[in-house]
């Protein structure tokens, strides 16, 4: 039952998404040249997507096993259980978000090393010699990649506020 509800929720979310995009398609300007208006193709896709989402919704409400996602969840109930279950991906998202947000400040080299170091610590733990090994691995990996792009491929990577004077 929980899975059927979940599929139905996804279908409704998709229908809302279609609604937002259909609404936004009215903001597309139509020039006085060309046969295919710029809004036509997106509207065709939105129409198809809406139709498919409706089928998906009906199937999930009917309990058609073909739409039910395979596999059983082994997590504990409640928000705490959910957070525990998705702990690692949530850390990855959060840290990557922080990594991109801090990029203009720290620059690609420092930010990249910090991101890899913290992520390894969070995913692998901080016990024993791990912090040292993680520091070595992150400096070596990101440092060599940064050098390859900066000196080998002549790509100007963000320097950040601290490295900017150099």
């Amino acid at each position, binding site marked *: 039952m929980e899975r059927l509800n979940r599929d139905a929720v996804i279908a409704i979310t998709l229908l809302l998404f279609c609604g937002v995009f259909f609404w936004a398609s009215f903001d597309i300007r139509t020039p006085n040249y060309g046969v295919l208006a710029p809004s036509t193709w997106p509207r065709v896709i939105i129409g198809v997507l809406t139709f498919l989402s409706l089928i998906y919704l009906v199937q999930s409400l009917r309990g058609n096993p073909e739409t039910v996602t395979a596999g059983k969840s082994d997590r504990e109930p409640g928000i705490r259980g959910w957070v525990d279950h998705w702990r690692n*991906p949530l850390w990855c998202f959060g840290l990557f*978000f922080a990594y991109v947000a801090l990029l203009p400040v720290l620059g690609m080299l420092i930010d*990249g090393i910090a991101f890899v170091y913290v*992520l390894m610590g969070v*995913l*692998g733990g901080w016990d024993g010699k791990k912090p040292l090994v993680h520091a070595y691995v992150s400096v070596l*990996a990101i440092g060599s990649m*940064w050098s390859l792009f900066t000196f080998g491929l002549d790509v100007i990577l963000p320097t950040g506020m601290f490295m900017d004077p150099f």
Partner: protein
Amino acid sequence: MVIDNILAAIDVLANTHAFLLMAVGVAGGLIAGAIPGFTIAMAVVLTLPFTFGMSPHLGLATMVSVLVGGLSGGLMAGILTGIPGTPSSVATTFDGFPMARNGEPGLALGIGVWSSFCGGIISAVLLMTLAPQLAQIGLEFNPWGYFMLVIFALTITASLAGKNMIKGLIAGALGLLIRTVGEDEAAGMARFDFGTDALLGGFDFIAVLIGLFAFSQLLNDVRDPETAKKSLTQQGNIRVKIEHRRAIAAILKRWQIVIRSSLIGVFTGILPGAGGSIANILAYDQAKKASKYPEKFGTGIADGIIAPESSNNAVEGGALMILMALGIPGDVTAAIMLGALLMHDVVPGPSFINDEPVLAYSIFISFFIATFMMLGLQSVMLKVFVRVTRVPMYVLASIILGFCGIGVFALQNVTFDIWTLLWFGVLGFTMRHFGFPLAPMILGVVLGNIAELNLARALAITTDLTPFVTRPWSLFFMIIAVFSAFFPLFQGHREKKKAWTLFYLPLACFAIALPLFMMGGTFRPVLATIVIGFGAYQLWRRRQNGWRFEAEEKTI
């Protein structure tokens, strides 16, 4: 002419720089393919940012090398640990792992390596000979035909999602919609920018691909905290020496399996959406059916390694063939190759081989060279593989996430691309979790503008919609798109013995014959007659069986 092109391509690639890049590519591909959880597509997509500073010839040669290496890398993990490195080497474990456990890991690896080599070479020969012919056919396509070809590619990819076909179709449509964000190519009008300048340029196609495929895959690999901390093997030192001589002898004795499986691989590669993951199982199944000793399959026999390994290496020849001849990617890795070509301002299509012969032939030649390099590097990379397997998954995932950030930024020097990577990573991970296949979405992103441009061209010629059914190629692709869309339903209902499924195949044959007749000439009407004959024969057989499938069920 062909010889001149081959010589020009060899001239471009016959230098130390190119060889070094290709060797690194093959080595990287071998390792990426060998690590379970790291797919070949992920390896190829992560190579993309490194190639943008290279010439198209070198960049594509490097990517082809990664691809060839990745296709062969899966067998190392599959044979030595029983865990397939990639989905395309699943069937290799059926007999490869038992053979290794029976005390012959060197022979099992040797058979795997040489079968991969043979499959790769057969595929490369077919790629070089058939791609230009296919391109000639592609020149007959008009905008209506091209538009329907894209629709067919999306439909068949979605239908390969099997029981989740509706989710496959939704994923494909989402991919098409994502591609519409930003200025449209025909009129230059802003679409779905929601008032922000960043969205005006649309999402960078490569950032979307890396996010959807690599980023989401990495998150999936570290989802379970315990598994993330484990390395692939705790076995310590695996000391294996590949037994080349015995392997070659075993393969020569079973040359029919090599040829048949390679052809299965090439054919599967040509079908949009079908890839190595299907080809290796199909080839294994066919080898078992044709064998005089099917009961021995699964116990560790050479036939069970030769079939999947030669087929999965042959797949990419087929996928590249349709990409280079028609501009339609056969699978996700070919879609990334298309992205690489577009990044270098090269648009593949029927005229691609004629317009850019040196570049086209350099792709063919690099496929050949990489296959030979794979043979030589497999033994060396085996030692590296053993070391890499001792690294915990979380370390590999963290480093690669860091690389993704640098690589994606380097594409256009825009921070917005890293945001794109993040959001599409989240989207890809969520979609995987809810059982939505990503391949149709990726093809939707890749093919979205091709479909729209051809639709615009078709409507610019005439606003009449009847050419979609009166032009033979358009009708041909429309018919196979409809039949492929109903294929999962057919499979499901056939098991339940529904009456209509008896007429599915004969009806498909009769329907396909119609556009073949419309194409004119001599060969195609003859082919149409054969197809009708086959359909009629199927109908007659069903009637003889009392309108049942029974006789066929025995063979399936």
